[in-house]
């Protein structure tokens, strides 16, 4: 077992037993940490892998959460039944919103996505269609019921979030070793070369958006379950900035990097709650210091994801010389 695998295993084991080690306040932070980590991973597909400067990721997270809330509170859907919608709705909107701007260069696209995020927040606050509940959001979301069991405890919700994180890991691992996943890297590393290899840039960028939105939407659903309420502030521009920063601070396209990023940007400020607002100094300082000292993130991604038979051959040839 190599170093990375052992660290990953250790992380998973610690996270699996975490609810038995902590009090309820920390369990709640643990759930949000897992949810935010999933959202950060989904942003990493768009920003870290495809290299798209998406500064509106909270939109898709929020759409997932609001879809669950609206369907449950206004239309009486079981929470479980809202999950497919919490995934599909953000996917559809990601394609509709990103479609017209996908060809834009990084900085222009960034400004456009900020615009989308501001519009999204206004739509929620102004109670458009009378279902978003205005500035206060939506309260009284049901508990999850599966086969007659009511999963109301924080421990149960923790494991839902944990399960979602494991699924996200699996998807990203599969993505990395597929044609689509590699195409995202190629586009990010050298767009002209990627084009010249027959890669349809816009198509794969939209794919990154759709996959990122799907995962963020699922995370939004768990977020709505955790707080049994949703409100516009949770999905505003500042939240998008946080997800953007997590990816860059942690390390683009790096699994451990994103976990570290989420920890630094979300859990550390929670550790210092007695410092009130000034604890966000950590948030700011972490961003500044990382960009200066480690421009590729705290734990940068490594490449070389190739089959063993090629690795072995290379090692043999190097050895013989």
């Amino acid at each position, binding site marked *: 077992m190599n170093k990375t695998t052992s660290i990953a295993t250790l992380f998973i084991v610690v996270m699996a037993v975490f609810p038995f080690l902590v009090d309820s306040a920390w369990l709640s932070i643990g759930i949000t940490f897992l949810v935010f980590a999933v959202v950060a991973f989904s942003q990493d597909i768009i920003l870290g892998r495809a290299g798209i400067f998406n500064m509106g990721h909270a939109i898709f997270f929020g759409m997932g959460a609001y879809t669950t809330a609206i369907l449950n509170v206004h239309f009486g859907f079981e929470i479980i039944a809202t999950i497919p919608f919490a995934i599909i709705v953000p996917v559809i909107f990601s394609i509709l919103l990103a479609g017209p701007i996908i060809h834009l260069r990084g900085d222009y696209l960034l400004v456009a996505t900020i615009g989308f995020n501001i519009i999204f927040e206004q739509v929620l606050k102004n109670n458009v269609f009378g279902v978003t509940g205005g500035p206060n959001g939506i309260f009284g979301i049901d508990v999850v019921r599966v086969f007659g069991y009511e999963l109301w405890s924080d421990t149960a919700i923790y494991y839902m979030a944990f399960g979602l994180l494991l699924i996200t890991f699996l998807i990203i691992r599969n993505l990395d070793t597929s044609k689509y996943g590699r195409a995202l*890297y190629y586009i990010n590393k050298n767009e002209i070369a990627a084009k*010249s290899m027959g890669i349809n840039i816009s198509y794969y960028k939209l794919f990154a958006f759709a996959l990122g939105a799907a995962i963020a939407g699922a995370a939004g659903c768990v977020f709505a379950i955790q707080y049994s309420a949703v409100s516009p502030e949770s999905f505003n521009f500042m939240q998008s900035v946080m997800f953007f920063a997590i990816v860059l601070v942690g390390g683009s396209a790096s699994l451990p990097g994103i976990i570290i990023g989420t920890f630094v940007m979300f859990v550390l400020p929670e550790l210092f709650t007695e410092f009130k607002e000034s604890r966000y100094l950590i948030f700011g300082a972490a961003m500044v210091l990382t960009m200066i000292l480690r421009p590729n993130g705290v734990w940068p991604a490594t490449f070389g994801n*190739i089959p063993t038979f090629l690795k072995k*051959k*290379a090692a043999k040839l190097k050895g013989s010389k």
Partner: protein
Amino acid sequence: MKYVLEIENVSKFFHGLVAIDDLTIKVKPGQIYGIIGPNGAGKTTLFNCVTGIYTPEKGTIKYKGENITGMEPHKIAQRGVLRTFQNIRLFKEMSVAENIIAGCHTKSNQKWYHSIIHTPFYKKDEKKQWEKVGELMDFFGISKFADTPAGDLSYGNQRKVEMARALAADPEILILDEPAAGLNENETIELTNIILKIKEKGLGIMMIEHDMEMVMKLTDYITVINFGKEISQGEPSFVQEDPRVIEAYIGTDDEEDE
């Protein structure tokens, strides 16, 4: 099929200035076609028109009889027109093998859901691609660099990776933009032999090159351009003796093109 690539009366302007002017070039399968000319003559511009990076204002470009003028670059590449770049464009942080498999992109039938769930079809498809990458690395003698980041290789080896990546797409036209630029003498000889071996595969090769020794050795047919215009064309021995070519080359220097 007589010609695999037909460039007919193509002109390209930048802000009203002529970059290439009424060029006609026809490439046969199995032929190495040289494009030579002084710097700034429009050679790379011509290649950018063929590969869809630029759209020419006049004329048509046909690939296997199909009009590809003004098509998007990825669509032209999907049809089988692949290229390398004068100023090497590799995915530098990624390993050599990962760079080469990029060329397999158009040959793979993986769908979007294979990036989420790895089906048996995915495994078969993936295996086929990596085996091809292995073969290409053997062909170019770079197998030992399979897991090395492409950016860490010597210039000569980076050129090989770029060619291997283009060949992975099974092109019928391979466009080489100054393959010997920045290489030392030994590397140039090695590359010349590799290009001759590629030619045996029966594809058409178009190349820009300043190294005249290499051009004379490799090419079957040459077009000489200056200020975007054709000044001569023919077999290497003919072009070499053409007074118009000699005149164009007097007083010009070997600076960077583009």
